[in-house]
């Protein structure tokens, strides 16, 4: 069956690499607290569009890579990413039919949960103090979601990624 063959796998991984680069790119200090969760947004898109190919384990791998690159305690983002993407994979059909506004709200909730899991694990492992600043990336990511969605959908249709 032709349906079963993955197509454009390279493009998906390339987009994830770009997300990883955006996560690491040095930015001015003023913008730093607002850095959107690029990688998670891109993972959310792919697990929503192609949940049978890119899902929890993809998220796990990318989370581990991000942990290594950020020099954080291993496993924090792998766990947080896996759980966030699990929520998306459970609701992907609903997400697809939602309007943009509803979609944005749901993505925002998932991002919030992701940030809270990361904070919670940091708090358990090393001492971390909670500040509202931690949730600012959620706002910037929600604003960017529509754009990320649009760009990735165009890429998916153009290169017939399956």
């Amino acid at each position, binding site marked *: 069956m032709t349906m079963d063959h993955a197509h454009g796998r390279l493009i998906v991984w390339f987009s994830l690499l770009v997300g990883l*680069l955006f996560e690491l790119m040095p930015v001015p200090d003023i913008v730093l607290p607002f850095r959107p969760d690029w990688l998670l947004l891109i993972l959310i898109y792919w697990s929503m569009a192609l949940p049978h190919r890119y899902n929890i384990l993809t998220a796990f791998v990318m989370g581990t890579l991000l942990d290594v690159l950020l020099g*954080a305690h291993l496993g924090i983002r792998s766990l947080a990413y896996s759980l966030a993407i699990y929520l998306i994979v459970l609701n992907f059909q609903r997400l697809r039919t939602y309007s943009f506004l509803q979609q944005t709200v749901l993505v925002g909730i998932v991002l919030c949960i992701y940030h809270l899991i990361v904070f919670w694990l940091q708090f358990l492992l090393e001492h971390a103090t909670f500040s509202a600043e931690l949730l600012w990336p959620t706002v910037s990511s929600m604003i960017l979601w529509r754009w990320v969605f649009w760009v990735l959908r165009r890429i998916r249709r153009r290169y017939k990624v399956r």
Partner: protein
Amino acid sequence: MQPIFARGVSVQFRLTLAVLLSVALLFANKKLEPVRESLASLLSPVQYLATAPGELFDWGAENLASLSMLKKQNQELLRQQLMMSERLQRFEHLRQENERLRALLGSPLHMDARKMVAEVIEVASDPFHQYVVINHGSNNGVFVGQPVVDAQGVVGQVVEVNALTSRVLLISDPKQGIPVRITRNDVRVIANGNGELDQLDLRYVAKSTDIKVGDLLVTSGLGNRFPEGYPVARVININRDDGQNYLKVTAQPMAALDRIRYLLLIWPEQQASEKAAVTEDATKVNDKQEEPKS
């Protein structure tokens, strides 16, 4: 419609697997250090790639600088150079004097440590940690625990080394403490990071301690991590709260931690200190030899 999840295992199974693996990673973090190091070395091209856009901008800015700006900069640098060379002359004189005095006292001489300039290629993207990544690694001889300074003062120490890059923990990180002394009266204290880039806390300072706003704190050399005499911070606030057992002292790091770009890696030479120890022994022997004579 294409059957979803026709192949493979269920979502729940995947989730359980991911969670179990993550928890295993969380617990085995310490033991996985070598794996993490090799993975980080493998991924260091990603880090270099991430800094590429910023470097492109820098390159553009450098190449598009106007003639008048360059002239102005050149003048300023010449002026600075003149002032520095004047200070250096005085410093050279002082150094010689210091060495003579130390020789008189029979105490070990200070050796010039090996240094290397490194560039910051990534700044903490994680609100819970304060570190920078620099562009030198074990290939250049960087080691864990190595002190890092900039033009103004101590920046931090190396905590993770890969082949091409290494990670520097800043002095403002809550996990970092640095033994210092006040230059005015040699009182020893420990400066702890508190998570703010422009603040250090001095903890457990007794209320009777002679400490004033404006006091300069330099590394004391205790703890054998940071070499002695590098400026660390200046005291900016002292809070005498009667309800507390200790003074609450805040200091501001000398190094502008929010805008560091070029750093100096220092090799506090083991050999130099060993040599010094040998000379010290030699002088002791001399003393002993001299003693019977006198």
